[in-house]
């Protein structure tokens, strides 16, 4: 039971940054010219480690650099790391979507990867046809699909619509059918991306349930995520990637704890957000430049907390509204403080430049644990100026009024309601 089924040996992957276009021909010619003379690829040398926060002076970056690890049969391995740590690149190499720049991966047994459900679904085809098509794309033979067809239809709960084109399906039916096909793949090694677990909570549970089911049957699973909750509940081993390098590996619990500790170390009292990459908004009109915990970190449950946001404005801004959200490490938002919850929290900025705003939380309702902070500001009701998901993380520890025997995480929020006794026989 302990033989190696995946052996990753010194995998590296070099990516070209920026636009592919101008310069590619000259780089290609140069590369070819070096090759003809028997020299090393000139662009392999100048690649730098993948650290997004620093602006490199090279056009090339290592998404992965000399990563090696082994996976044994029956292990459920979680691959964790921050955004851009190289998880997705590793996944793509393992699922053979792209090849490494150097190094080797050796695999024993049939491998299947689920980077997405419903890959290759054709909206014009019926559910039945799509089961066959999707199954074949995922590597199943026709007899195999024939054999499992009824099971797949049962699992998907769309039997009535099986001969209807999938473009008429509701999105829920579509996803269920797609997942049903994927769930009935029977590979010896399964690679799963966390994006698979999007969708409603019911569906997530079904995905997770199916995965632990597969794991119990002695199959090997690689699960890629930055959702620590999912990794801890599903995996027994973990590998931590940081900036494209193998950072730590071992028991999921140990790696997970180390990962959380390291990430909270980064949550200093004041976090500069100037260089952090934005997802949607570009921060060109207003940019949240820093978040500061005025009463120090860690925060204490039930105590007063003051948070300061610093925002740099390029121009005058009317009707400014701010928001701070706290999410659990599983990525579930538990508390949101929007400034426009009352009228005094709508500001107007008369002079461009950096302004600061303060939020006072009377009694922090968050249970002890680690939280990820989202910050945002908008002008008016729907005009977003800047939004940062996971801008910082912070630890909350128990305060003077937190119950002494604190039972782990039965809830993320602990409030103090007013309790009274209405019993007749008072003592």
């Amino acid at each position, binding site marked *: 039971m302990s033989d190696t089924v995946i052996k990753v040996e010194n995998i590296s992957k070099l990516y070209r940054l920026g636009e592919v276009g101008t310069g590619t021909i000259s780089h290609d010619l140069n590369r070819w010219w070096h090759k003809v003379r028997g020299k090393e690829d000139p662009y392999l040398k100048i690649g730098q480690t993948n650290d997004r926060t620093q602006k490199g002076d090279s056009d090339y970056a290592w998404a992965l650099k000399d990563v090696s690890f082994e996976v044994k049969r029956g292990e459920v391995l979680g691959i964790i790391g921050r955004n851009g740590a190289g998880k997705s690149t590793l996944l793509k190499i393992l699922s053979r979507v792209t090849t490494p720049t150097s190094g080797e991966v050796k695999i024993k047994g049939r491998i299947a990867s689920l980077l997405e459900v419903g890959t290759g679904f054709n909206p014009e085809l019926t559910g039945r046809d799509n089961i066959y098509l999707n199954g*074949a794309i995922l590597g199943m033979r026709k007899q195999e699909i024939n054999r499992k067809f009824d099971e797949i239809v049962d699992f998907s709960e769309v039997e009535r619509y099986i001969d209807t084109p999938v473009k008429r399906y509701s999105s829920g039916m579509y996803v269920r059918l797609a997942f049903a096909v994927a769930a009935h793949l029977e590979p010896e090694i399964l690679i799963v991306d966390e994006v698979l677990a999007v969708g409603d909570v019911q569906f997530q549970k079904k995905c997770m349930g199916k995965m632990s089911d597969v794991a119990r049957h002695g199959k090997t699973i690689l699960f890629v995520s930055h959702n620590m909750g999912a990794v801890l509940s599903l995996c027994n081993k973990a590998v931590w990637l940081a900036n494209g390098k193998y950072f730590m590996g071992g028991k999921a619990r140990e790696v997970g704890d180390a990962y959380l500790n390291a990430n909270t170390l980064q949550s200093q009292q004041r976090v500069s957000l100037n260089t952090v990459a934005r997802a949607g908004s570009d921060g060109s009109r207003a940019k949240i430049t820093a978040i500061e915990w005025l009463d120090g970190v860690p925060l204490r449950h039930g105590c007063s907390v003051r948070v300061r946001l610093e925002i740099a404005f390029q121009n005058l801004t009317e009707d400014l509204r701010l928001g701070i959200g706290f999410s659990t490490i599983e990525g579930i938002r538990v508390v949101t403080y929007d400034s426009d919850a009352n009228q005094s929290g709508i500001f107007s900025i008369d002079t461009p430049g950096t302004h600061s705003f303060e939020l006072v939380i009377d009694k922090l309702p968050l249970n002890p644990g680690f939280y990820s902070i989202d910050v945002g500001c908008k002008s008016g009701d729907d005009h977003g100026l800047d939004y940062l998901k996971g801008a910082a993380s912070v630890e909350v520890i128990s305060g003077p009024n937190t119950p002494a025997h604190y039972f782990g995480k039965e809830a993320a929020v602990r409030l103090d309601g007013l309790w009274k006794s209405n019993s007749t026989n008072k003592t």
Partner: protein
Amino acid sequence: MNSQHTKIATNSLKTSVAQLPAAESSDDWSLVIRPQGRWWELQLTDVWHYRDLLWMFVRRDFVSVYKQTILGPIWFFIQPLLTTIMFTVIFSGIAKVSTGGLPPMLFYLAGTTPWNYFATCLTKTSGTFINNANLFGKVYFPRLVTPISIVVSNLIQFSIQFLLFLGFLAYYLIKGTEIHPHWLIIIGLTPVLLLLMALLGLGTGILVSSLTTKYRDLTFLVTFGVQLAMYGTPVIIPMASVPAKYLWIMEANPMSAIIETFRSIYLGGVIPWMQLGISAAVTLLLLLAGIAIFNKVEKTFMDTV
């Protein structure tokens, strides 16, 4: 357990036959992912393993093309018919280009039927990587399955146009027009010609598609170039009436011999065996080069597309 056994076995083998190169440690790996495969590894067994997928793709193409059209497959009928009528009017009627004594309709149909098949194979397969980037970025299967499935699905279009051609041929034969098909050779050579066209279209198509992943300029060139190439092929003008000054263009084109042969076996005339042989050799070379480059590109194209 198992791997240990093999290790012991290889070790004992090494001691007894010392000059043998050391076997790679218990080499029962079913898959090794390396930076670059060797260029001569065509990975055709891999494609064979995914043959079910190939049929799924063909089926998908067939079903999804006719969905929500009123005329359905008749469209494949109308398009060549109109083109042929156009050719007849412009080239035969107005410009008076010789058709070698054959009825113009039949002459043009004998050219456009095979040419259309080749041209659709080429243009459609040349977009393999770009059109399927989303699919290819999510799951692995031998990418070659996609262009092959395109070539196979195009057979449907070809057969419809071929039926149209046969219909006209029958009409003229019954009418008593002077046509002398090589009946015996037809049966043997038609599938060969079809295969040659398919392979040539596939070979050039995947070559182009491999190059377009990096340099998109080629996509513009393909649709345009295929149109131009038709005039460099004896689709409209029989090779016999091309001035010697320009003849080399047609002779250099591997499709010329195929179309000439196609027309000769159905409508009568000399079969250019020699040219056909050369054309077959060129097709094979292009195909091998195409597959080799395609396989190389499929490994890294996700990074450049």
